[in-house]
């Protein structure tokens, strides 16, 4: 196996991008990544594209070939990866394996979702497909509903409060204010969150990540040649993925995401690190409760202890550990297929020292955590600055 590095990153602004369709978003992020890596379109050897539900949102399938087409990657293999909300992270891992295996040297990985062309009810239905269509969605158990069921049980078993969940949103919106690519640049208070509209009790609209348009891209290369392209390669030192039952009630516990526990343990073992070594962390906060689960399941806090620590500010920017500096899915936005790649872009910028106002001081090791559905897929990557 060869060591793999990120040599270039690109991002679109996330949000309601009415002027841009799916292909424009992909091309914008892809071009930015090529420029950042100083790589020509013709040099890219294979492309992986992550998107969850382009067919449901805009009626377009076969998105990887379209990505290759629009970026001038003439005739190279193009592969779409769909793993619900973890499509981006899963695509990144495929790209990582393509380089690590020795089959390809220059690999492009993109993630995209164009969601705002659909109505919010259509989007709710499309996103519900991330859970079990036959036994959850068909009964009107929506995607926020699944996380609401997890939140309610977590509150019952561990005394987690709605105020503590709200504090996740407050923190992530604070961070988003410092990110020019973020969908929202607005601060919220705990009371704003608790007074917002109920979506699936106990989750309110400001506990939920938004409907967003956006794309993100990275260029990967073997570490041994990475310095040819950039002075600041980011070394991927751990890459792991796990799955679990699609249906929530088929699991032994709903107060943890077991796939995250397994993927984090594997990625940390590969990277030879433990949770205390991590300086910057992008976790999958599709709902506020999800960030609490992630911090526990990845081993940053014992089960039942993360909510209070977050409320106490331990995960704010430049505190004990900086979590979701981009604003997370909550504040930066959640164009589903793009999210896993955006997390890698943010950690890359942080480790390069290019994150501007939201820079984590002395960031050496960063982690990304991307979840699909209610936890049927989890992907964890560990990254390190390469000097």
């Amino acid at each position, binding site marked *: 196996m060869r060591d793999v590095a990120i040599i270039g990153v690109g991002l679109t602004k996330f949000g309601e991008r009415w002027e841009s369709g799916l292909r424009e978003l992909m091309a914008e992020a892809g071009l930015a990544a090529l420029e950042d890596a100083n790589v020509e379109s013709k040099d890219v050897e294979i492309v992986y594209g992550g998107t969850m539900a382009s067919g449901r949102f805009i009626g377009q399938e076969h998105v990887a070939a379209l990505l290759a087409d629009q970026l001038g990657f003439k005739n190279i293999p193009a592969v779409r990866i769909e793993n619900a909300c973890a499509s981006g992270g899963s695509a990144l891992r495929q790209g990582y394996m393509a380089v690590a295996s020795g089959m390809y040297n220059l690999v492009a990985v993109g993630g995209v979702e164009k969601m705002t062309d659909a109505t*919010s*009810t*259509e989007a*709710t*239905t499309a996103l*519900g497909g991330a859970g079990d269509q*036959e*036994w*959850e*969605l*068909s*009964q*009107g*158990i*929506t995607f*926020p*509903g699944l996380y*609401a*069921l*997890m939140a*309610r*049980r977590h509150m*019952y078993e561990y005394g987690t409060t709605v105020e503590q969940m709200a504090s996740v949103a407050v923190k992530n919106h604070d961070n988003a204010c410092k990110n020019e690519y973020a969908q929202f640049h607005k601060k919220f208070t705990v009371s704003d969150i608790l007074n917002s*509209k*109920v*979506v*699936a*009790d*106990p*989750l309110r609209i400001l506990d939920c990540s938004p409907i967003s348009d956006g794309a993100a891209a990275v260029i990967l290369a073997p570490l041994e040649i990475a310095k040819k392209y950039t002075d600041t390669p980011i070394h991927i030192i751990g890459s792991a993925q796990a799955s679990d*039952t699609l*249906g*929530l*009630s*088929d699991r032994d516990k*709903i107060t943890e995401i077991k796939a995250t526990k397994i993927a984090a343990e594997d990625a940390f073992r590969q990277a030879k690190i433990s949770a205390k070594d991590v300086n910057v962390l992008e976790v999958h906060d599709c709902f506020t409760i999800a960030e609490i689960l992630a911090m526990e399941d990845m081993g940053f806090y014992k089960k039942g202890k993360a909510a209070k620590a977050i409320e106490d500010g331990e995960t704010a920017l430049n505190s004990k550990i900086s979590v979701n500096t981009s604003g997370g899915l909550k504040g930066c936005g959640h164009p589903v297929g793009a999210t896993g790649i955006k997390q890698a872009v943010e950690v890359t910028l942080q480790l390069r020292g290019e994150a501007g106002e939201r820079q984590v001081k002395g960031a050496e090791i960063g982690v990304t955590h991307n979840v699909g559905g209610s936890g049927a897929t989890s992907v964890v990557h560990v990254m390190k600055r390469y000097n």
Partner: protein
Amino acid sequence: MERSSASLWRKINSRYNMVGNECTNCGKTYFPPRLICKDCGRKSKMQSKKFNGAGEVYSYSKIHVPTEAFKDSAPYTVGIIKLDEGPLVEGHIIDDGKGVNIGMRVKSAFRRMDVDGEEGLIYYHFKFVPE
């Protein structure tokens, strides 16, 4: 999404009568039923099992923003029920006005779930009601 009548029909036994299954190799019970036991793999010996539907509320949520098919029935309460006979099962909980809470006893009942427009198919399903 428009559903075909076949997709409804092939699940009727489970949706109407809460028929799941049991792996007689290890004793684990499942609802919804599955072809292969999660733990036993090729050694699975699956046998149909009708659950009586009694149990207690394990978690619940009142859904205010529904999917397309349920846009006329929101808000409605859904939950996960821990059946006395083993498995956790997801379904609607009928709130009789006294509220729903974790640990509350419920039993299953045969109810109308939703309708495809005025002239379309009517979907039936078990729901949970207070015991």
